Every structure is written in C-alpha cells, then in structure tokens.
C-alpha cells in the first residue's frame, strides 16, 4: 500500500523525490508509525515478483527449446542407447510435438514432481546431479566470496581515504588489471606457474590417494562441503588436501570480482566523503576515524550492496569456466560438459537453477537495501 506524500498547506510536498524530508520539515509522526509496516509491504511487493520472474525465465527457456525438433527434445528423456528406436514413443509419452504452451504446462508439472529429465553427462537424473554437485560448487563460491568482500572493501576504503596517494595508485592499477584478466587466461596462467613449474597445487578436488581412501569407506558425507566433512570425520590431512586444491580456483574466481568491488567501493566512498554531512561531522570535532567509519563508509556501502547481486552473476559465469579449467567436479563443469555433449536436459536444468538463484539473490539484495537505506522504502 502506498502512503500518499503528505503536503504542506501551500500544496508543496513534504518529502522530495528521494523521500528525504527537506530541512525545516520534521518527518510527521504518521511516517514514524508506519515505518515497520512499510518495510513489510516493501518485502511483500518484492516477494510477489519472484514467481513472476521465474515464470518469465522458464518461458524463455522453453521457447528456446522450440528451435529443436521433437526428436532432439526427446533426447532429454533417453537413458540409454537401446532406447534410440523408442524416440517416437517418447515423443508421444511426453507430448513433445504439442504447441509450446502445452509443453510448458507439462514441463512445469514434471518440474513440480522433481523430474527435470535425465543427464547423459553424469548418467543420472538431472535433479540428483544438481543436488550432488551444488555443495561442491557452493564450497568454492563461498570461499571466493570472502576475499571478494574482504579484499575489495578493505582496499577500496584504503584507496579512497588516501586519495591520489601511493596506496590509491597501487590499488587503482591492481583493480584495472584484475578487472581485465579474463578468468580463463588467469586460470591457465596460474596452472602453468603453480602446477607446471612449481608443482605446489594440483587441479581437481582431492588427491587420488585420499579419493581412494574415501571410497574405501569410513568417510561420512555430512554437508557435501569436503573441507568441513573431513574435519567432522577427524581427518585433518584430507581437509588440508582439499583446501590446497581450492587455492587456485578461489584466486581465479575472486580476482575479477574483487577488482569490481574495489572500484565501486573507492568511488562511492569518495562521493560520500565529499558530502555535507561528513564536513559537518568533522566540523563538530569528531575524530577522523569515527567520521570515516560511521558517517562515510556506512553510506558508501549502499552501492556495494547493489553490486553484490551482480557479483553473484559474475560468480556463476566464473564458476562455469573456473571449474572447467581446474577440472573441479561442480555444477559449472557439469554444465559446460553437458553443453558440448548436446545434453539438453542438463543444460536447461542448470539454466533454470541459476536463474532461480539469481532472482532469489536479487530479492535478498533488494530487501537488504530497503533495510539499510530508508529512502528506498519511501521511494
């Protein structure tokens, strides 16, 4: 529900376009009363977008599938070569020659039953592969987010606070180079140096000897996160080995994204530092550290939160390439292989999964944004 912008006696609005109360106009009490209510409706409005976007994205993907012949679409439901002569039956069974909207309805119905087709790449149902490989990829992505946020925000802040100083110059050069090295070039170069030349790290997820030991039994998968599971099993050696395999992929994945965050953090903190309220805070005699942290940086983080939605998209794009280079058995490697095998079911399963993940993440970002910055809620 939209609350009308209260007007003064002379008809001018109390709030300006951005929802800020101009100086001399205290926020009316009703606004304060409605604060909690507004946040709730804001979140609700955003939540209603979720099924809509899901509907749209899946329609796009199903429409794309109409470029294929029914026989090609049938490939998604074939489990072995023996079934090749049953293609007409499969087309009839799954009604793959019907108009697209009928197929879309049927596809949604199967999706609700957890049937996303059969992955020829991994020889199991698509949903099983998704479930198995998700923790593997999540482990990599979560570890990559740490340096992205830590390094990005820290260096961006340092650069802005030392504007045009040595640190600033170094950070700017670093970020522009980090931003310009494509993931696949970075990955290959890292492998040439640290695997080929120095032999410190290997591609893959775990060394063969440990893989054999784990297959022999006695190793329980609690979470699917290998490092965590190894610790829960009391195997420090396996945990360390898994970590060692994660070093290069994490660096590869994190470089581009941290460079992005660094740039945005720097420029938005510079903007914030030139605001009037920062000058006022300084004029009041507050310590520079307090002004920088509490007044400037907190506001400068808002664009960074916006960017985090894009960071997730970047991570998904990056995961496909990084996992392929490092032979890391996650979702990205599976999707890239499936695309080469013309394994439609797997690629579509992956596409739908990423779309839902991105939409959900954007929703979270929006809500976070609304909480951090009240102006958004009033907008």
């Amino acid at each position: 529900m939209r609350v009308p912008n209260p007007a003064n006696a002379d008809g001018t609005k109390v709030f300006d376009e951005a929802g800020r109360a101009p100086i001399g106009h205290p926020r009316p009490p009703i606004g304060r009363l409605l604060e909690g209510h507004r946040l709730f409706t804001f979140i609700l409005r955003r939540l209603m977008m979720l099924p809509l976007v899901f509907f749209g994205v899946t329609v796009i993907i199903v429409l794309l599938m109409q470029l294929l012949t029914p026989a090609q679409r049938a490939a998604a439901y074939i489990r072995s070569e023996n079934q090749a002569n049953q293609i007409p039956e499969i087309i009839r069974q799954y009604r793959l020659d019907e108009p697209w909207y009928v197929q879309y309805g049927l596809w949604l119905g199967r999706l609700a039953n957890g049937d996303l087709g059969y992955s020829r790449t991994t020889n199991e149902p698509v949903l099983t592969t998704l479930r198995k490989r998700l923790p593997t990829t999540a482990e990599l992505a979560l570890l990559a987010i740490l340096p992205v946020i830590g390094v990005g925000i820290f260096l961006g802040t340092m650069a802005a606070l030392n504007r045009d100083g040595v640190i600033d110059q170094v950070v700017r050069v670093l970020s522009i180079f980090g931003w310009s090295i494509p993931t696949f070039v970075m990955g290959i170069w890292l492998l040439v140096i640290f695997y080929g030349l120095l032999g410190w790290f290997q591609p893959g997820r775990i060394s063969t000897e440990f893989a054999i030991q784990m297959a022999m039994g006695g190793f329980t998968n609690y979470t699917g996160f290998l490092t965590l599971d190894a610790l829960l099993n009391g195997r420090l050696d396996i945990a360390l080995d898994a970590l060692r395999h994660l070093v290069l992929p994490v660096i590869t994945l994190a470089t581009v994204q941290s460079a992005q965050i660094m740039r945005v953090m720097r420029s938005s903190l510079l903007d914030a530092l030139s605001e009037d309220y920062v000058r006022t805070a300084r004029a009041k005699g507050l310590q520079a550290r307090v002004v920088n942290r509490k007044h400037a940086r907190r506001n400068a983080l808002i664009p960074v939160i916006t960017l985090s939605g894009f960071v997730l998209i970047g991570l998904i794009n990056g995961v496909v390439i990084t996992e392929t280079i490092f032979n890391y058995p996650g979702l990205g490697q599976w999707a890239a292989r499936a695309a080469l095998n013309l394994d439609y079911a797997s690629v579509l399963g992956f596409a739908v999964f990423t779309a839902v993940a991105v939409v959900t993440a954007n929703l979270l970002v929006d809500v976070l944004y609304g909480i951090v910055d009240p102006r958004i809620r009033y907008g």
Partner: protein
Amino acid sequence: MDAAPTPTFVARKTALGRWWQSKSLRRFRRNPLAIVGLVIVASFVVIATIAPLVTPLGRSCMRDLGLTAATATAHRDVRNPAFWEIMFRTPGSCYMMPRAGFSPIPQTPEASGTLLGTTSQGYDIYYGLMWGARTAFRIGVLVVGIGLTVGILVGATAAYLGGWVDNVLMRFTDMVIAVPALVLALVIVMVLGNSIVNLMIAIAAVAWPSYARLVRGEVLRIKQLEYVTGAQAMGRRSFGIVFRHILPNAIGPVLIVASLDIGSIVLTAAALSFLGLGPELGYTDWGQMISFARNWILGPPGQPLAYWYTSFWPGLTIVLFVLGWNLLGDAFRDVLDVRGHV
C-alpha cells in the same frame, strides 16, 4: 631578397577545433590511462586491418584468392585485385588458421618455421592472433549493431507508448537480465549449433536488454521536452515523432556506451569458444587458442615450461585487448559523468 611572410597559427574556430578544445575532451586528453587505452585499441584496429598483409597465407585461402605458390605474396600489392579481395571481401577460408605440419605436439618457432610457434595440430599461433583481431572486431561490431537495433526498438517503443506496453517489454527485459549472460548464451549456442554466426546471435541475445533500458531512460527524458509536445500538437504520428524527433537526440550516449561494450562482448565470445561453444575448429579466434593451450600446461619431464608459448601469447593478446577497452571505457565514463569529480 624578400622574406617570406612568417606563417601565424591561429586556433581556428571550426567545429572540430571546438570539439578538441571542449572541457570534456581536454579532461580525456590529460588522463594518461585513457591515452594508453586509446593507443591499445587503435593498435588492435591497425592489426585487424593489416593482418592479411603481414601473415603468411594458408593454402585454401591462397586458392580462393587465385594465388599460387609462386605468387604467394602478390596480394600485398595494391595493383593486384587479390589485395582488394582479401581486404574487403575476405574469403572465409582465410579465417582458418594455416597449419605448419600436423604434429599433435606444439612446436617451437624454430622447429615449425613460424613466428610464435604452433599449437597442437600445427596451427600457426602468429596467424591466429593477427587474424583473431579481425574476428574480434567482426564479432564486437556486429553484436553491438544487432544488440543496439533490438535495444533501440524495444526501449523506444516501451518509453514512447508507456502503459502496459512499457510494463510488458521492460519486465521481459528484466527477465533476460536475470539469467547469467554466459549461461543463456550457452543454451542458445547449444540449441543453434556451433558457428561464428550463431555465436554472435547468442551474444546479441544477451546484450540487448541493457541498451533497451538505456534508450528507454533517454527517450523518457526527451519525451517531456517542449518540442515534442510541439510536434504532437502539429499532428505528427507517434512513430514519426519517435524516429524523427526523439531518437536522434536520445541516441548519442547510448551509442558511446554500446561501442565501449566491444571489449566485454569479445570477452564473452572468447569465453564461450574457450568452452568449445564457438566457431568451428581451427577458426582464428583467441578463445579457441587458449583452449588448445589447456592440454599443454605440463611440459615433458624436466622441462616444465616447454610449451609456454601456447598459453602466453594468446593470453597476453586477450588481456591487452580487454585492458584497452576497459581503460577507454573508464575514461569515457569519467568524461560523461561529472559527478564524482567535485
């Protein structure tokens, strides 16, 4: 002896001179990083242009140009029709990397008689990199062209008509943006099949939404100006107003932003063909050359860096290309957006 009149240089007030002296261009000229970016991009333009003249052509390319082994370099002569053909009507076979032998193992420059060595299967790295610049610009310019056309049509229609049309078109745009670009392009190339044209279609299909948003914003801004109301009052039809009066004024910033996208578009293309979803095998395309290098990370025992040239040169080329566009893009964004320069 009469002294020749000393020439005096007066800053001429031509349109070009005014543009050169304008505040934003001065800021651009004084930014060293921008100049570096400009120089890099300009070098790539030069490389793409002269690639046919400085590379040893392959056999099928020579055949299509009507050249023989005896006249292998005749196309470098401007008087020869082969020159004009290879420059402006390049046969498709010239975009395929010539092979110096068929060795499954990469060969050093000395062993293969090429400038930078060969990848596995004998593909000439030097040829691939030089012609790859042509491929890169072809992909970049065409994709931006297709993407812009679609973006302008969608954005202008949405903004001018407004109401439910605007809502439907823009929500559709949001949905396309919601899918990670690489994943959507992957689906499209897989469905359409591997080829350079399909690669371009796939990337254009993920590139247009951002242009549509930009155009829509600009058109919405201009729509409110008085001269548009004037045109409406004179009874011009809506599409006439959009295309004659609004778009020409809205298109400037959009064109700049879109052309600066060439770097990232080429990057996406290279990423896709690195994954094996690009043009056919042997096409002069940087992403594919990097993917060749994947199998040669380890050298033979005792020589860990034996095949360094397979990954170094293509990697360096892509990094420089992307760096050039990023520097240029950064500088332009600085010039266009005065905020942040207090």
